[in-house]
C-alpha cells in the first residue's frame, strides 16, 4: 500500500494501522534508493526524522489528531532548518549550518510533520531544470534522461519517486509550478505575502514565496494550512486571515465547484508556441470544464508578453543585492585565497569560486540594471510594467473567477538540451511569470486526457488570497480522475 500518498497516509496514521516511525523509516529507505538514481537530495535527515516521528507517535497516543502529525515531508534546501546544513545547492554555502528555523519550518514541526530530507535545487533558486547546482543534476524519476524542472526540482522528484507525502518548494517565477508539471504532481504558489519568507534565503524578495507540493490538491491544502499566515518576522507578510484550507476543501466536496465557474483563457497564449501534447491537454481540459458546467471564455492580459523581460530585470536586480551577503567571510567558505589580496580581492575570489555560472550571470545582469545611468531604463521601467501586469489581472478578475493556461509550454525536456542557451531555458517560465509579477496565487496540476508520454501540467490562477478556490477546483477535477489521481 502506498502510505506516502498524503490522504492514505493520514488515514493509516489515524487508524493506527501504521506508526509514524514505521512510515518515516519507509520514507528514509526510499529516499536513499532514489538518491543513487535521481540525486534529488542535499541531505537525508535520518536522526532528526526518526526523533520527530517518535514524538509524533507519542502525541497521537495522547489524543492529538493534527492533520500533518507524523507525516513525512521534504524541504527545499533554500529554507533553513535549525541545526541542519542549508546549502542553496551552492558551493559558497556548502558548510553553512542554519542557526535558526524558517517560520514555515517552525510551523510544520509544531504541526507534527516529520522533516525527512533537504531537497536539491538550481543554485539559489536560479534555474528551470536543476542543472545549475554545485552538487550535480537531478533526474526526473519518470524519465531519468529528462530534467525534473526547477528550481524546486528536488522536491518534485522526491514526490514523483514516492519518497514523501508532501514537500515544500519555493517559487520566484515558477519554481514550484514548472517542476510540479514536469514531474506530474500538484504544486501551489500562494499569494505573495501569504506564507512568511523568514528563513527563506532570498533570491528575489518581491517575488519569492514558499509553496506546498504534493500528489494532489488535498495534500497541498493540508500543507498550506500549516505554514500560511501572518508572521511578525516578515514585514511583507500579509495580515489577511488565513483559511482552514483542508477543512474548506473537504466541506466543498458536497458542492459542485465546477458548475458556473467562470474560467478565462488569455488570448495572449496565441503568441506562445505550445508543444502539441500541451496544446492537446489544454483543449481537452477546456472541453472537460465546459462539459461540467463551467463557463470558459477568452480574457485579455495585454502585458502578458512583457512578463519575461520584466521578470528578468527585477529578479536579477534584487538578486544582485540579496546575494551580496555571500562574501566568503561571514558565511560559507571563509576568507581564503592568495595572501596579498585586498578586501575587494578576497570578495572577488570567494564569490568567483563560490557561485556557479548562472548565479554569476544573474548577479552581473542585476548589477548592470541598477547602475547609475541604467536604472531608469531597466529597473524603474520594469517596475512600471509590473504595475501594468498587476492591473491586467485586476481587470480580468472582474469577469472571471480563475485564469487557465498551461504551466509550461512543454513537457520535461532532455537534460543538457537547454544549458547552452539561457533564453531558451528562460522560455520554459513564460506562463508562470505573470502570476509571480502580479502576486496572485497559482496552482499547477497534471492532466492526461490525451495520454501524453510525459506528464503535462495545467495552471489555474485566482485573485489575491483565493487559494481555497484553486484548491477546491483542482480537488474536484482530481476526484473526477483527471491526471490519474483519485
Amino acid at each position, binding site marked *: 500500500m502506498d502510505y506516502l500518498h498524503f490522504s492514505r497516509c493520514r488515514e493509516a496514521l489515524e487508524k493506527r494501522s501504521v506508526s509514524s516511525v514505521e512510515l518515516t523509516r519507509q520514507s528514509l529507505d526510499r529516499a536513499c534508493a532514489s538518491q543513487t538514481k535521481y540525486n534529488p537530495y542535499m541531505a537525508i535527515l535520518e536522526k532528526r526524522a526518526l526523533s520527530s516521528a517518535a514524538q509524533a507517535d507519542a502525541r497521537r497516543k495522547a489524543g492529538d489528531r493534527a492533520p500533518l502529525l507524523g507525516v513525512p515531508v521534504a524541504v527545499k534546501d533554500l*529554507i*533553513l532548518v535549525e541545526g541542519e546544513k*542549508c546549502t*542553496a545547492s551552492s558551493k559558497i*554555502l556548502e558548510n*553553512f549550518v*542554519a*542557526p*535558526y528555523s*524558517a517560520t514555515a519550518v517552525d510551523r510544520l514541526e509544531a504541526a507534527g510533520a516529520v522533516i525527512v530530507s533537504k531537497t536539491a535545487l538550481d543554485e539559489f533558486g536560479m534555474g528551470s531544470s536543476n542543472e545549475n547546482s554545485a552538487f550535480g543534476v537531478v533526474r526526473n524519476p519518470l524519465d531519468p534522461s529528462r530534467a525534473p524542472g526547477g528550481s524546486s526540482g528536488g522536491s518534485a522528484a522526491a514526490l514523483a519517486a514516492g519518497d514523501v507525502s508532501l514537500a515544500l518548494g519555493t517559487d520566484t517565477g515558477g519554481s514550484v509550478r514548472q517542476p510540479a508539471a514536469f514531474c506530474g504532481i500538484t504544486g501551489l504558489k500562494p499569494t505573495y505575502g501569504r506564507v512568511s*519568507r*523568514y*528563513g*527563506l*534565503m*532570498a533570491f*528575489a*524578495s*518581491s517575488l519569492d514565496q514558499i509553496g506546498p507540493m504534493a500528489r494532489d490538491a488535498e495534500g497541498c491544502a493540508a500543507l498550506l494550512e500549516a505554514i500560511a499566515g501572518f508572521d*511578525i*518576522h*516578515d*514585514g*511583507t507578510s500579509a495580515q489577511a486571515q488565513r483559511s482552514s484550507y483542508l477543512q474548506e476543501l473537504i466541506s466543498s466536496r458536497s458542492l459542485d465547484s465546477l458548475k458556473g465557474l467562470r474560467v478565462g483563457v488569455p488570448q495572449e497564449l496565441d503568441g506562445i508556441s505550445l508543444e502539441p501534447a500541451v496544446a492537446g491537454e489544454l483543449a481537452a481540459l477546456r472541453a472537460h470544464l465546459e462539459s461540467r458546467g463551467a463557463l470558459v471564455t477568452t480574457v485579455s492580459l495585454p502585458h502578458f508578453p512583457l512578463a519575461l523581460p520584466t521578470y528578468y530585470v527585477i529578479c536579477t*536586480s*534584487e538578486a*544582485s*543585492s540579496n*546575494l*551580496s*551577503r*555571500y*562574501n566568503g*567571510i*561571514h*558565511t560559507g567558505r571563509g576568507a581564503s585565497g592568495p595572501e596579498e589580496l585586498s*578586501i*575587494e580581492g578576497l*570578495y572577488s575570489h570567494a564569490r568567483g569560486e563560490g557561485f556557479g555560472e548562472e548565479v554569476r550571470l544573474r548577479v552581473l545582469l542585476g*548589477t548592470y540594471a*541598477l*547602475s*547609475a545611468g541604467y*536604472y531608469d531604463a531597466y*529597473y524603474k521601467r520594469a*517596475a512600471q510594467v509590473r504595475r501594468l501586469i498587476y492591473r491586467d489581472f485586476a481587470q480580468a478578475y472582474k469577469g472571471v473567477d480563475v485564469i487557465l493556461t498551461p504551466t509550461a509550454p512543454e513537457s520535461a525536456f532532455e537534460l543538457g538540451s537547454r544549458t547552452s542557451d539561457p533564453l531558451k531555458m528562460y522560455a520554459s517560465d513564460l506562463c508562470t511569470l505573470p502570476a509571480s509579477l502580479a502576486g496572485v496565487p497559482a496552482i499547477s496540476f497534471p492532466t492526461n486526457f490525451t495520454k501524453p508520454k510525459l506528464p503535462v501540467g495545467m495552471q489555474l490562477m485566482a485573485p489575491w488570497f483565493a487559494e481555497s478556490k484553486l484548491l477546491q477546483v483542482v480537488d474536484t477535477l482530481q476526484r473526477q480522475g483527471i491526471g490519474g489521481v483519485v
Partner: protein
Amino acid sequence: MANYEAVIGLEVHAQLLTRGKIFCSAPVHNDGEPNTSVGSVSAGLPGSLPVLNRHAVELAVRAGFACRCAINPVSRFARKNYFYPDLPKGYQISQFDEPICGEGWLDIASDEAGTQIRRVRIQRIHIEEDAGQLFHVASSTLVNLNRAGTPLIEIVGHPDLRSALEAKNYLKVLHSLLVHTGVTDGNLEQGNFRCDANVSIRKVGDTKLHTRTEIKNVNSFRFVELAIEFEIARQIAVVESGGKVIQETRGWDAAASKTFSMRTKEDADDYRYFPDPDLPPVVLSPDWIERIRSEVPELPDEKKRRLQSDMGLSDSEAKLLLEHRDWHVYIDELCTHDIGAKLAASWVISDLVGELNHLSKTFAENPFSASRMAELLKLLQGKKVSRRQAKELLIWWMKHPDASIVEHVKNENLVQVDDAGALEGWVDTIIREHPERVAEFLSGKDKLFAFLMGQVMKLSQGKANPEKISAALKKKLEALRP
C-alpha cells in the same frame, strides 16, 4: 584673503534613542562586549528579514517637528549597495528619494555675541541603519557588529552656512534641539552625534557653488570649527596659488589639527540604490502625525522667548535657565508658593546660584527646599526686608541651614523700617554729620547721593526701606539748595 567667503553644508548623523535596533529585536548596546548585541538581521544571516521598529519612525518624525520639517505621509526604504567588512548584508538600508521628512529650517547665531541670526534651511531628514565597527590589530582586522543596525537619522542641511563659527553654532543648536526633544542622547564621545561637512569657497559676490570637499565624521563642536577653518584656509591657499580644489573626501586629524585627503571622487562607488523589497512603504496617518506633534516638548528657542517675556529675563539669563533644568524646576516650585516668577527667577539665577558658587557648592547641594526658600522670598516680596537684607539673610542662613529664617528675622529685629518718623531722624542725623559732603553734592557732585544713602542705611543697620530713604533724603537735600 577677505574677499573670499565659505559655503558650508552639514550632514549630521544622530543615533535615535530606541531600546532595540531598527530592523530586529536585538537591543542597542554600543559599548557592550563586542558582538554581544547582534540579531539575525544585523548579522545579515541568510533568510533574515528586516522588520521596522516603529519607535524609530516616531523619533524621526519628532526630529522633523523640532527642525520645522514637512513630514512626508509616505516614505520608503532603499538599499545602498556596497561591499565593506562592517556591512554584513552587503547593503545599507537607508532612505533615498522618498525620505521621512522634507524641507525645514533652524535659526542660528552667526557671530560670537549672538546678535546676528541666520536662518539655515534643512533639505531633508532620513532614517537609516548604522554599520558595524572595524578594529585593526597587528596584521588582522576585527569586526564588532554591536553598532550594526542601530537606528540613525541623517539631517541634511542646505549649503547656507558661511563660516566655521556658523557651522559650530548650527551643530550646537541642532544638538540641543534633538537632545531636548528626546530624539537622541547626543553622546559625542560615542559618536552618537556626528557630522560630515561639505566645504567650498568663492569670491564674495559670486553666487555659484564651486567644487567642494567633504570632511567625514567629525564628532565635536570644537573640531568642526577647527576642521572647517583649516579647510577654508587650505582651499583659499590652493586657489590663490593658481591651483584648483578637487572634489574629495577628507578626514580630520585632531592631533595635527588638519584635514587630510582620504579618497577622491573619481573612485566613488555607484551605490545602485533601489527600493528595498523587504520593507513596505512607511505610511503615516494624519492622526498619528498629529499625535507625535502634540507630544513634542516646547522647542528651546520658543521656550527662551517665553521665559524672557514671562520672567523678565535677559537673553543671557534665559539661556542659563535653558541650560539648567534643575534651576528651572526650582523656580517653578517657588512659584507654586506664591512667589512671583520674575522675583523667583532673578533670585535663583543671581543670588542663590551666586552664593552657592561662592561656597563652591553645586545646585544639587542647595540646602533649602523651595518651600523654605519661599519663606525668605515672601519677606522680600512683602517688603518686610530689603533686597540687600535678603541677600545678607541668605548668607547667614547658608551657615545655619537648620534655623528658621522667620524666627531669625524676628529675634534679631531685622524687619525693614519704613516708619516716616524714624527714617527722617536718620536722614537728619547724616546730613548734620557730613556738612562738607552735603555742600559738595549741592555744588553738583551727584555721585555723593549714593554715599549719603549708604550712610543712612548703615545707620539704620540696613533696616531702612531704601525706596523711602531715597525719597526722604532727596527731599531734605533739595530743601537745602539756596
